[in-house]
C-alpha cells in the first residue's frame, strides 16, 4: 500500500491515471524487460504508429499548446523564440516531423527513434543507434521538459530547441542526410507537408522552419506532474517517508541541490552550467585528447564539425571544451534535467551508469578524481539507507502518467543494483582513502 501511495498519490489519482491512459501504458516496455505487446521497429524503438497513438493519449493534439501552462507562464514565455511563437499549427507540423523516418538517409531513423515516447523520450540505450545501426557516443537526453533548458546537447553547443533539431538530421551517424536540401527533398513530395508548412509559417517549406516546427512541438512535451511536485504543492502524502528523507539529503548532506536546484521557476533540476564530475576520466586521458582536439578544431570548428566530433569520436569526451576551447571546460558537461529520471536509464553523457544506485555511488565516492574535477564534488559518506532514500526521491520525480513504467523500472534497477554495484567505493565515500590520493601515491609507485 505504501508503494502505491509513493508513486500515485491517493486512490482518486490512481483512478484518473487509469482512466486517462487506459491499458496502453501498462504495456510500454522498459530496458531489460521489454513488454512483448509493444510493436518495435528494426532499431528497437516502438513503432511510429504506436508512439503517436500513445502520445495522443498522453497529450491530445488539441491540448498540446495548453499543456505548457504547467510551467510558470512568464518563465516559459522567455524560452519561446520571438520568431517561433507557439501555435497549434506549428506544433502539429512538428509532431509529424518528429515521427517521420523519411528525414533519415535510409528511412530507418526519426527523432522518435532515440526520443521514444514509450521510453521516457529517450532510447534507454547507453549510446544511440543511428542509420545502418551505427552507435553514437552520446546518451540520448530526454526531450520531455527540454523547453526550459538554456542550452541543448550535453556540451551546450546549441542555443535552442529550434536550432538543435536541425543537427541530428545531418549527422552522419544519426540520420545521415548530407545537407538540408536533401532532407527537404525527402518530404517535399508530401502535399500534407506543403500545406502544413504554409499554415504554420506562411511560406514555402524550408529547413529553418523545419527546425522551428520540431522545436515548437518539443516545447509541448511537458511532463511535470510528479509525486514530488504534488508534495511541494502541499500534499504531504504524495511522497513516501523514504523519498521525503531523500529530499532532506538532496538539499543537505548529499549536496545535490548545488547543481540540481529545483524551484517553481526552474523545476528541471539543472543549473544549466557545465561541470566535470569525472565520468569520462574513468577511461580517457584528457590532456592527450585536448591536444588532439585543438589540432582538429584549428582545421574546422564549424557547427557541423562539432556535431560530428561529439557523436562520432572520443574528442566528444572533452565535453564543453570542444565548444569553448577553455581549460576550465575540459570534461565538463551540462547538468542534465532530472525530471522523469526514473524512466531514462542509463545515465550520464555516455550512458555508462546503469542504475540510479550507480549514479549515487558515483557522487558518494567524490566523482572520479581528475585534474579538471569540479571543486563542488567531494566524498559524501552516504550510508546504504541514505542512498536508498535518495533513489526513492529520484523515482518520485517521474510524471504520474508514467507511474507504472516508473514502478517497473524501479524494481528492475533495484534488482540490478542488488546484483552489482560496479561504482560503489566505500573507502572513498568514507574518506578512508582521499580523492587524488591514489593518483598521487600511484605516481610515486610507478616512479620507484
Amino acid at each position, binding site marked *: 500500500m505504501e508503494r502505491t501511495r509513493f508513486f500515485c498519490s491517493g486512490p482518486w489519482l490512481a483512478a484518473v491515471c487509469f482512466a486517462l491512459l487506459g491499458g496502453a501504458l501498462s504495456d510500454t516496455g522498459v530496458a531489460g524487460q521489454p513488454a512483448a505487446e509493444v510493436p518495435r521497429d528494426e532499431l528497437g524503438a516502438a513503432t511510429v504508429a504506436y508512439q503517436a497513438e500513445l502520445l495522443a493519449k498522453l497529450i491530445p493534439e488539441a491540448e498540446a499548446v495548453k499543456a505548457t501552462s504547467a510551467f510558470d507562464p512568464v518563465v516559459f514565455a522567455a524560452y519561446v523564440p520571438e520568431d517561433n511563437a507557439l501555435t497549434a499549427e506549428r506544433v502539429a507540423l512538428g509532431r509529424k516531423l518528429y515521427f517521420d523516418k523519411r528525414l533519415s538517409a535510409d528511412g530507418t531513423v526519426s527523432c522518435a527513434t532515440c526520443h521514444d515516447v514509450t521510453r521516457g523520450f529517450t532510447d534507454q540505450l547507453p549510446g544511440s543507434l543511428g542509420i545502418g545501426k551505427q552507435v553514437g557516443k552520446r546518451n540520448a537526453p530526454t526531450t520531455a521538459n527540454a523547453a526550459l533548458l538554456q542550452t541543448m546537447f550535453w556540451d551546450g553547443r546549441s542555443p535552442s530547441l529550434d536550432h538543435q533539431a536541425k543537427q541530428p538530421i545531418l549527422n552522419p551517424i544519426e540520420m545521415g542526410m548530407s545537407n538540408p536540401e536533401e532532407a527537404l527533398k525527402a518530404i517535399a513530395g508530401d502535399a500534407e507537408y506543403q500545406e502544413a508548412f504554409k499554415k504554420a509559417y506562411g511560406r514555402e517549406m524550408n529547413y529553418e522552419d523545419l527546425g522551428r516546427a520540431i522545436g515548437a512541438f518539443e516545447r509541448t512535451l511537458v511532463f511535470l506532474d510528479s509525486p514530488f511536485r504534488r508534495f511541494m504543492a502541499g500534499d504531504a502524502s504524495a511522497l513516501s517517508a523514504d523519498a521525503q528523507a531523500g529530499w532532506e539529503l538532496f538539499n543537505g548532506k548529499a549536496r545535490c541541490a*548545488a*547543481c540540481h536546484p529545483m524551484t517553481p521557476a526552474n523545476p528541471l533540476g539543472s*543549473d544549466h*552550467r557545465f561541470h566535470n564530475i569525472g565520468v569520462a576520466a574513468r577511461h580517457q586521458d584528457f*590532456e592527450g585528447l585536448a591536444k588532439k582536439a585543438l589540432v582538429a578544431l584549428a582545421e574546422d570548428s564549424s557547427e557541423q564539425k562539432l556535431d560530428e566530433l561529439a557523436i562520432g569520436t572520443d574528442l566528444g569526451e572533452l565535453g564543453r571544451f570542444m565548444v569553448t576551447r*577553455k*581549460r*576550465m571546460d575540459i570534461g565538463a558537461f551540462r547538468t542534465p534535467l532530472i525530471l522523469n529520471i526514473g524512466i531514462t536509464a542509463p545515465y550520464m553523457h555516455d550512458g555508462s551508469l546503469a542504475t540510479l544506485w550507480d549514479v549515487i555511488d558515483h557522487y558518494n565516492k567524490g566523482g572520479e*578524481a581528475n*585534474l*579538471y*574535477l*569540479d*571543486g*563542488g564534488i*567531494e566524498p559524501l559518506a552516504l550510508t546504504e539507507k541514505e542512498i536508498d532514500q535518495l533513489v526513492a526521491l529520484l523515482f518520485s520525480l517521474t510524471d504520474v502518467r508514467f507511474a507504472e513504467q516508473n514502478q517497473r523500472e524501479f524494481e528492475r534497477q533495484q534488482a540490478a543494483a542488488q546484483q552489482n554495484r560496479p561504482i560503489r567505493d566505500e573507502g572513498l565515500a568514507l*574518506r578512508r582513502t*582521499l*580523492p*587524488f*590520493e591514489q*593518483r*598521487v*601515491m600511484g*605516481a*610515486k609507485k610507478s*616512479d620507484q
Partner: protein
Amino acid sequence: MTIFKSIETKYMEERESFFRGLQNLDRRSFLKVSGAALAATAGLAAPHSFQPVTVAADAGAAESKPAFRFAYISDSHLYERDVNDRFVRGLLRAVDDVNNLDPQPDFVFYGGDLAQLGQVKELETGAQILKNLKAPLRIMVGEHDWYLDMGQKWQELYGEPTYSFDHKGVHFVVLNSVVEEDFWTARGMTPMERMMTVAGLDNGLQSPFTVGEAQRKWLQEDLAKLPDDARVIVFSHSPLYKLYKPWNFWTDDADEVQAILKRFKQVVVIHGHTHQLLTNRIDNIYFHGLLGTAWPWPYAPEGMPELTIEMSRPDPFNPNDGCGDGEVHVHPDGLVDKVYNLWNRNPVTVSRTYLASWGKQDVPPKPNRPSY
C-alpha cells in the same frame, strides 16, 4: 577617525610632490630623491617616474622565450586528516596537478603555511604528500608552520628557513619574513595560545611580521657578491611591502629590505600568505602573489596595488574555486611571467611585460566566470 585616501589620490599626491622635487636635479640626485620619495610612501603604488628603468630592459620582449620554469604550491593549511581532510585533498590535488605538467618544471617551490596550527602531525602529513612530487622541492616557512614550537618541527624536516641557491644563472633567495617580536612571554601564553593568536586575522595582540635585523644583514652579505645587473628572485611568505596591516598582509621592515634590493636593475619578489591574484611593482621590484590550495582570501579593503587584476568572487558552492597552484616562467632578463592555475577557472598569466609597461601592455584577462 582615520580617513583612507584612495590609491589613486595617494598616487597623484605622490606624483606631484615627486615632480616638484625633480626640478634642477641631475640624474644621479634624481635617483636619490626618488628613493626618498618612495621610502616616504612605501607600500603605495610606485611613482610613474620610474618607468624608464625597465623600458630599456624590455626591448625585444616579444620574441623572448623563458629560460626555464618552476612550479609552485602554497598555503595548504593542513589539519590532520582525521580532523579535516578538505585541505589535505587540496594539497593532493596540487601535487597531482604539478606532477602532470609536461615537461616537468625544474623544481617546485612551496610558499609556506603547510600546516594550519604548526602541529607535528600536520607538518608530517604535508611532508608525506610533498614527497610525491616528481620535481625537486624548495620550501619556505610560513607563520602557521612556526609559532607552535618556534620552528622546531619544520626545521627538523626542512632545515634552515633562510637560504639562497643559484639556478641557471638566477640567484634565488628564500627569507623567513614572518618573524614577530615576543608578544607571548609577558602575557604568559601557552605555545598553542601563541599559535592561535598568530593564526588569526584582525588580531591586534600579535606583532607585525618582519624579516628582522639578523636576516637583513644576512641578505646584504648574500647579495654582496652580485653585480647590479644580476638576476635575483626573492621569496618571502608575507608580501615584502605594506599592503594591509590588520591582516598581516604586511612586512614591517619592508622599506629596509627594499633598500637592500634597490641597487639591482630589477628584482622579482614572490610571496605567499595572500591566497589570491596579487600584482605590484615598486620601482625596480616586481611582486607576485601565490594562490593557496586551502582557500582564497578576499581582497584587502583598501590599499590595493593598482596593477592587481582582482579575481572575481569565488563560487560558494565550489570549495576549490579561487584556489590553485601555478608556474613561474623565468625569462633571460630575470623577469617572470606568473601563471595562476586556478582550479575550475581558466589559468591567468600575469606577464613580465605587463609589469614592465606599468600595466599598459599584455593586460591579463579578468577570470572568466559567468555571474549568476
